[in-house]
């Protein structure tokens, strides 16, 4: 189908972008990569009066290694993340997840800011932001603010962002020393949205888990952290009984949908299996 008519505005700077959004009083949508927005327009699920195109804002696509963190500009395309030596060196779990993001033609155009703002519950980037304790930099007409990833995702396709705000940057702290990671996903076809996906990080010192993180996508109304399972692992070595208990806790913390692609029970089962695989991989790498 064809998209409905809209007015087209080009933002030449972040300040101009938020000013255009503020002027539109909630009637505008931001056009970044458009890989989720344009299908919704073509289906006429959305009828915004105005599209604010941010693709021409200079200096918003970058991956910077700055001390303890990697800073990623909101307009950075998925393909840049997938192939960045900085990401491969410092955030290998993100590198692994990027190979599951859609298809090359989508990765060439889709942006990190767009994926986080769209907040599909089965997408990889929101779960990676949660796993890596990322912070999200937001510009508004009155200034800038910082939101922790765990406060950013509110529900399916819903984030803590006002209609006149724009994501400008995502900051990922580097992995602590002695940290192993795992990423496991099952989808119907390579590049499709996950039926379930699990990312893990285990920081190990003196043979014991000092910090455990488990993020899950595709199994609830939003990506989430398996806090109870993380708590079970802390201070212990990963042995089979503990692994089983952590997988049970991960299964218990999700509430998956049933749809054409998989039943709720099957998705919950996958969460357990993938958590086991991803924790085992993280333990081996730590």
């Amino acid at each position, binding site marked *: 189908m064809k998209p409905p008519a809209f007015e087209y505005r080009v933002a030449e700077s972040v300040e101009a972008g938020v000013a255009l959004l503020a002027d539109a009083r909630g009637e505008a949508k931001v056009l970044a990569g458009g890989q989720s927005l344009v299908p919704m327009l073509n289906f006429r699920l959305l009828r915004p009066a105005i599209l604010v195109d941010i693709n021409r804002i200079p200096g918003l696509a970058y991956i910077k290694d700055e001390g303890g963190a990697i800073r990623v500009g909101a307009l950075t395309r998925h393909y840049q993340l997938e192939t960045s030596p900085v990401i491969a060196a410092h955030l290998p779990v993100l590198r692994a997840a990027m190979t599951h993001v859609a298809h090359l033609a989508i990765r*060439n155009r889709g942006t990190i800011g767009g994926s986080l703002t769209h907040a599909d519950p089965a997408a990889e980037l929101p779960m990676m932001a949660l796993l890596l304790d990322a912070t999200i930099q937001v510009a508004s007409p009155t200034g800038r603010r910082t939101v922790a990833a765990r406060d950013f995702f509110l529900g399916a396709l819903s984030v803590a962002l006002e209609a006149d705000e724009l994501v400008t940057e995502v900051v990922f702290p580097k992995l602590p020393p002695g940290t192993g990671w795992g990423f496991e996903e099952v989808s119907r076809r390579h590049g499709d949205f996950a039926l379930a996906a699990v990312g893990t990080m285990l920081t190990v010192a003196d043979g014991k888990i000092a910090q455990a993180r488990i993020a899950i996508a595709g199994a609830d109304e939003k990506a989430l952290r398996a806090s109870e399972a993380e708590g079970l692992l802390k201070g212990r070595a990963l042995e089979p009984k503990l692994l089983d208990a952590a997988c049970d806790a991960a299964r218990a913390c999700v509430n998956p949908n049933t749809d054409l692609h998989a039943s709720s029970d099957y998705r919950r089962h996958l969460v357990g299996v993938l958590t086991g695989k991803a924790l085992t991989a993280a333990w081996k790498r730590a």
Partner: protein
Amino acid sequence: MTTRMITLTVNGTTYERAVEPRLLLADFLRGTLGLTGTHVGCEHGVCGACTVLVDSDSMRSCLLFAVQLDGAAIETVESLGTLNNLSPLQEAFREHHALQCGFCTPGMLMTATDLLRKYPLATDEQIREGLSGNLCRCTGYEHIVKAIRAVVEDTR
């Protein structure tokens, strides 16, 4: 409806046209410029038939608006070869029977062009992963994979 002037190149030729903002690149190529090699299947970024190169990167032309592409360089399937002078990739598709009805072929060719530039495609599994965003309902993909494998081996 307000239109905007855009200037862009398609297959090396410069075009200046007034476009409505909601005009998709796929419809601009086919309807405005008459370049009907690019096929339109699903119109929501799933089938891959409309894949073209935008500034050398493969993209879905049903998920881009022409108005966004002022100053861009677009390449479509028409840029690859001609009936009497097929490109090596097109020749491999002919040789290995990589098309039947041909509807998906322009998208397959443009996707493969980008894949061959960006990935080693060392295994058939990698080729299949690369093609996972392009639907073909005739061939079962087997012959498309063979054709791309042949190009990888020829250029090694």
